[in-house]
């Protein structure tokens, strides 16, 4: 398979006063060309850190990529010089950030912020760049007349549209969207998602969509990776993951999603809390919260195993049961 992105054994730590935060710990992930991957996990699972790692934008200090490889278009991004990375950022890989309220420079008009991206990666004059910026604004559904406005003159949803316009301005191969709708009102969320879906088609870019909302994933993505405590615990195409999740954590997540057709008094929740990233549990990081955990789980860190073609999970116990056709 032609993999556009192949992350191998990526480990990212933050050194803070109270110790080392194991934000990403031996993460493996692949993304094919033209695919869109939903990257799901609770707050603190290491999703944003992974994304920033791909961009090589981990704030250092305190963050540091300790080991691993990020192969993008056949080349390891971790071997690139800063100058080479700058060419890749924006042009090949673009990112949409979580909070549109703070992601735009408050003292710069939006056309200039889009044009900046264009001027950096395309050989155009300043006025051409500004004209293209106006085109981009129209593309994301903002009237051209507003291009000389400052960010504070836009609403949250509009700002996110501007952020999307910046990200797509240079036609990137890979778009990383970090919870692009979390900070928005529910009604606006749908519009922005619709826009992203449409533009993804139009630009035929691959996409990593970071979210904690399984509903959004169902709507937009082809593949899903579930992240827990710095690692991917389950990876599959959307259909097989949604129809039969394997890892206990994934199943817990699905159980906690309310079902409109069902009338329940109480939603089941996963007991316990996310582990402290400074002191990750030994073995499988999920074992303290897992109802099926055995002594073995506390000792050996489980590797990803293929349960059915293209469906991987990091729980040997469950994979075995699944392959034996037992109920999970």
């Amino acid at each position, binding site marked *: 398979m032609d993999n556009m992105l192949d992350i191998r054994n990526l480990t990212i730590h933050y050194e803070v006063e109270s110790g080392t935060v194991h934000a990403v710990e031996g993460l493996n992930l692949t993304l094919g060309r033209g695919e869109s991957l939903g990257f799901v996990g609770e707050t603190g699972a290491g999703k944003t850190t992974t994304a920033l790692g791909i961009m090589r*934008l981990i704030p250092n200090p305190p963050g540091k990529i300790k080991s691993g490889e990020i192969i993008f278009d056949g080349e390891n991004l971790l071997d690139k010089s800063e100058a080479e990375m700058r060419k*890749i950022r924006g042009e090949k890989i673009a*990112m949409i950030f979580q909070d549109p309220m703070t992601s735009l*420079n408050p003292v710069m008009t939006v056309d200039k912020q889009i044009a900046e*991206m264009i001027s950096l990666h395309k050989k155009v004059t300043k006025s051409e760049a500004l004209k293209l910026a106006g085109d981009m604004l129209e593309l994301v559904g903002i009237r051209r007349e507003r291009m000389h406005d400052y960010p504070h003159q836009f609403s949250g949803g509009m700002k996110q549209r501007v952020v999307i316009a910046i990200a797509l301005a240079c036609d990137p191969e890979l778009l990383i969207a970090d919870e692009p709708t979390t900070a928005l009102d529910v009604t606006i969320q749908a519009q922005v998602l619709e826009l992203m879906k449409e533009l993804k088609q139009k630009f035929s870019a691959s996409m990593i969509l970071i979210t904690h909302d399984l509903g959004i994933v169902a709507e937009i993505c082809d593949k899903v990776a579930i992240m827990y405590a710095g690692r991917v615990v389950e990876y599959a195409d959307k259909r097989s993951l949604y129809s039969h999740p394997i890892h206990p954590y994934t199943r817990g997540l699905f159980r906690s999603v309310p079902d409109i057709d069902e009338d329940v008094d109480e939603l089941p929740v996963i007991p316990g809390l996310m582990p402290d990233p400074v002191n990750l549990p030994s073995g499988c990081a999920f074992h303290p919260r897992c109802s099926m955990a055995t002594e073995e789980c506390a000792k050996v860190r489980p590797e990803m195993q293929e349960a059915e073609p293209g469906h991987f999970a990091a729980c040997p116990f469950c994979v075995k049961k699944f392959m034996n056709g037992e109920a999970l």
Partner: protein
Amino acid sequence: MLKYILRRIIMLIPVLLGVAFCVFTLLYFTPGDPARMVLGDLATDEAIKEFRDKEGLNDPFLVQFGNYIWKAVAHGDIGRSYSSKRPVMQEILTAFPYTLKLSAFAMIIAIIIGIPCGIISAIKQYSWFDTITMIFAMIGLSMPVFWLGLLLILFFAVRLRWLPSSGFSTFKAMILPSVALAAQSISMVTRMTRSSMLEVIRADYIRTARAKGQKESIVIGVHALRNALIPVVTLCGLQFGQLLSGAILTESIFAVPGVGRLMVNAIMSRDYPMVQGGVLFIAVTFSIVNLLVDLLYAYIDPRIKAELK
């Protein structure tokens, strides 16, 4: 925008009236008879009485205050110096250019040194440069201007004989007083730039700029700096007021013939119209500077500009 400026100027009026009232009251109730001060101890009682009548010193307090304000507004007359007998306004206007020059030089020095130091300190947080700059800034902040002035004189004028120890007529003579006066402001500007910059470089929009593939020098120099300087501009306005009053001490150390020295001499010789006029004059200048800073602020921060429309 024009409307805003006008409104700000109108708002200034009650504040300045308030300042005038405070200063007038303060000195009105000061022990000692102004007539006696002007005419001297040998004056006859009749002469004193005549003077009091003529100058309206027997009028009720509020009438006197009203007259003072009226004369100040209508004729720019804020009294006559007891000691030199010349109009206070005239004396102040002769001295003011020196004070303004001194403060402006100090401000420029503070900006030229403080902002770059603050930026580098912030970018290289916890580096040796940062540590040393911060310690020096703290020392500068704690350095009494009158002591620093004396040290500079001792070193550069007495020991090395490079620069004159007093006066303000040549460029060489301006160096020591300006540097002495600037020390505290340099420290303030450095610290403020650093902390403002530290806050800004962690902002999401800086990450956005980096994610565009922008060069670090432009990320810092354009995106971060413009945002980080907004609070620094406010500080500079406030610092200018500090400089104007710091000039009082600096001028008396370096014998600069500015408003500060005029006032110190006036205080020593109990020349109250002069003191009153001097305080009022500096307060007016300070208020105008702050107004200008607010306008500049509106210019560099579009969020505020929008609010004004």
